[in-house]
């Protein structure tokens, strides 16, 4: 090693730039309260969404004596999902796949039409954060008061305000977890069990987990969730286009930013003056602390609160409202270039495609749901042996039938087998009906397994395999299922 090399290594080790921080503290955001159209919409949606979440488990839906009467219930123990008039079995979990596809494409369509509607108004992170912020505001005051309180030394006033906030947050968080577990058991019963400390351990565990996540995410993490945890802002940026409505600072109108007085002077002498007075109200009210005037960005959840704040300011300085508003990039760019903005194109290839996928998947699911059979018959041919020779030389095959009754009443089913003349069949444990068809009764909401023996005289069992029809006909509801299966012979 030469002297020069050693010197190089030492210099690299002593490089003070190696000490620069690779981690940065997350600056705390103190959103200011705001009144206006979008704030009202957000309040309305907050009460609507939380109302559904907290109250839905208590809605009753009568399904018959043997089934639960909770409208929405995920019954893990009995492996059923109830949603009002729909009851799904585990083998129908593909509906969930359909729902997930629908959810994703609806999100894309919303984005193509009007940007991050989901992020700004409907996302649980947004809704709960909004709720937690209002609690915070109730105990600690508005933006300036909260900043002052955080900077102030610890005092009785500060302690009780902080304590009240966190206790309220924890109570809301606890009830969020509490409502969650109600979807998995009979809600009134579980509430009573929880109140008397008799509930199953898993219920407390899940309430604990959701209390922690709600308290941490809505109370402390807030915009950090959108900035660092959520994949959607990144995908959204790749999916948007110039024709999508977005919460936009109309820079064609706002720039150059000057004070109200200077703007008046400039306009008098016929010079250009922007409407933005650089008052920072849009930044002050922003729940994620971004500056909308920097354009579309990852941190902007497009909740519209800056529109309310800016409109308020514009009214005060006697300028038209709408300096910040829902607008398309195409329109802003056109106006900035002093050309006529193009008409808004709602129908574009991407909106057509999204709408087509939504109607296709939604239609297929609805069709499947509307025409799905409440009676399932699955036939398994016995493999060992494929056939048996009987005393009189005839050939017998045996089958296992699995019959699922998805109704809430027991159903008597007549089993018949169609095949060449001389085909005989037998079911162990079936009682014969008046017309000598064997009857099996499937209890409500259950699957039973029965063995079916089918025999053919040697003279008709000529081919090594031929198709027979096995049919289950419901005597009470008139439904029937036919399955074709092979009959094997030597």
């Amino acid at each position: 090693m030469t002297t020069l090399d050693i010197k190089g290594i030492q210099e690299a080790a002593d490089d003070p730039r190696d000490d620069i921080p690779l981690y940065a503290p997350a600056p705390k955001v103190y959103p200011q309260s705001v009144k206006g159209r979008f704030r009202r919409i957000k309040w309305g949606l907050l009460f609507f969404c939380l109302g559904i979440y907290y109250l839905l488990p208590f809605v009753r839906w009568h399904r018959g004596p043997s089934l639960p009467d909770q409208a929405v219930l995920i019954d893990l123990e009995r492996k059923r999902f109830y949603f009002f008039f729909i009851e799904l079995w585990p083998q129908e979990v593909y509906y969930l796949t359909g729902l997930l596809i629908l959810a994703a494409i609806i999100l894309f369509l919303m984005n193509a039409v009007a940007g991050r509607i989901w992020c700004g108004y409907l996302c649980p992170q947004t809704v709960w954060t909004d709720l937690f912020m209002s609690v915070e505001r109730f105990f600690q005051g508005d933006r300036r008061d909260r900043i002052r309180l955080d900077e102030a030394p610890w005092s009785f006033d500060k302690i009780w305000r902080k304590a009240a906030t966190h206790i309220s947050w924890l109570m809301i968080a606890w009830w969020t977890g509490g409502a969650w577990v109600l979807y998995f058991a009979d809600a009134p019963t579980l509430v009573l069990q929880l109140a008397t400390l008799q509930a199953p351990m898993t219920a407390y565990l899940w309430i604990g987990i959701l209390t922690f996540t709600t308290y941490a995410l809505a109370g402390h993490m807030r915009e950090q969730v959108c900035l660092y945890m959520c994949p959607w802002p990144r995908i959204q940026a790749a999916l948007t286009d110039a024709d999508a409505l977005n919460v936009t600072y109309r820079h064609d109108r706002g720039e150059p930013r000057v004070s109200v007085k200077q703007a008046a002077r400039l306009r008098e002498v016929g010079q250009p003056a922007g409407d933005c007075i650089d008052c920072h109200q849009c930044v002050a009210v922003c729940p994620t602390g971004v500056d909308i005037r920097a354009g579309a960005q990852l941190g902007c959840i497009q909740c519209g609160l800056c529109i309310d704040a800016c409109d308020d300011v514009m009214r005060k300085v006697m300028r038209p409202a709408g300096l910040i508003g829902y607008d398309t990039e195409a329109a802003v760019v056109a106006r900035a270039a002093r050309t006529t903005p193009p008409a808004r194109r709602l129908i574009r290839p991407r909106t057509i495609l999204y709408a087509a996928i939504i109607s296709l998947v939604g239609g297929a699911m609805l069709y499947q749901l509307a025409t799905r059979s409440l009676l399932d018959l699955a036939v398994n041919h016995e493999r060992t042996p494929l056939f048996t020779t009987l005393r009189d030389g005839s050939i017998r095959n045996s089958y296992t039938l699995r019959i699922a009754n998805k109704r809430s009443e027991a159903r008597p089913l007549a089993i018949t087998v169609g095949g060449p003349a001389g085909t005989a069949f037998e079911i162990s444990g079936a009682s014969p009906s008046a017309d000598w068809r064997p009857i099996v009764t499937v209890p409500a909401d259950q699957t039973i397994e029965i063995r079916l023996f089918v025999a053919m005289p040697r003279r008709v069992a000529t081919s090594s395999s031929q198709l027979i029809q096995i049919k289950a006909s419901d005597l009470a509801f008139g439904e029937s299922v036919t399955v074709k299966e092979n009959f094997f012979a030597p």
Partner: protein
Amino acid sequence: MAPDLEKPAVDAVTGTPTTGHEWDGIQELNTPLPRWWLWTLYLTIIWSVGYWIVYPAWPLISSHTTGILNYSSRAEVGEELAKLAALRNTQAAGLAHASLTEIKASPDLQRIALARGKAAFGDNCAPCHGGAATGAAGFPNLIDDDWVWGGKLDEIQKTILHGIRWEQNPETRVGNMPAFGRTGMLKREEIAQAVEHVRSIAGLDVDKTVDLAKGKEVFAANCASCHGEGGKGNQELGAPDLTDAIWLFGSSRQAMTEGLINGRGGIMPAWNGRLDPVTIKALTVYVHSLGGGQ
């Protein structure tokens, strides 16, 4: 030009500070992660320490640290198995009190009996009768409708309990197909005639050169006492029906001749005492359900 080591370098294009690292003119920009991200790393480390204390974690030379909860997945499986055994015992109690016909009549009891019977069949009966109970030459097929000793529930149960030609059991089923040829009771020619007679009543192909009338005489004198005048067999004696399509030792001329010369006498062990009464009941119901039960 020597870089200014006091100030962090700033990338001219993005305006972002760089880390000062440079490779072939490519600079590394410094976009710091939020501090809490680092805290979550420390938190997971603290969590893991807590985990080591509470749960089994570290391997030692011949054992491992057990953790203060003393948790063991093996013990958990053991508990589950004990619960299952307790459940099976209550189900067995149901079978113990019910008669065979009561078990057949009750779907619940039948379900339990079939599950238990299937398991017991696989453990004890399958080596001879086959996993699917289809049997083999000399070992009866239990899924067809032909029975040497009877296919009613109580007859099946008796066969399982006491076995066939099982000398240690006084109540065992006994029936003998004598070795007509080896003992000299019948001459080779008479045996051939008897075989052709049996083939004719069974509907099998017959050698026309053999005297069938003689064969019928030999049958009446030697075989009919057990197998019956018409060869329909007798389940009391375990004498198979010779007119049906099912042949325990095969329907070839050679197999039939061999039976007449050397006799036949398969053995089945008595299971009374080797299996508990509930298991035998379950086996009876299971065998009865295979397709031949009467």
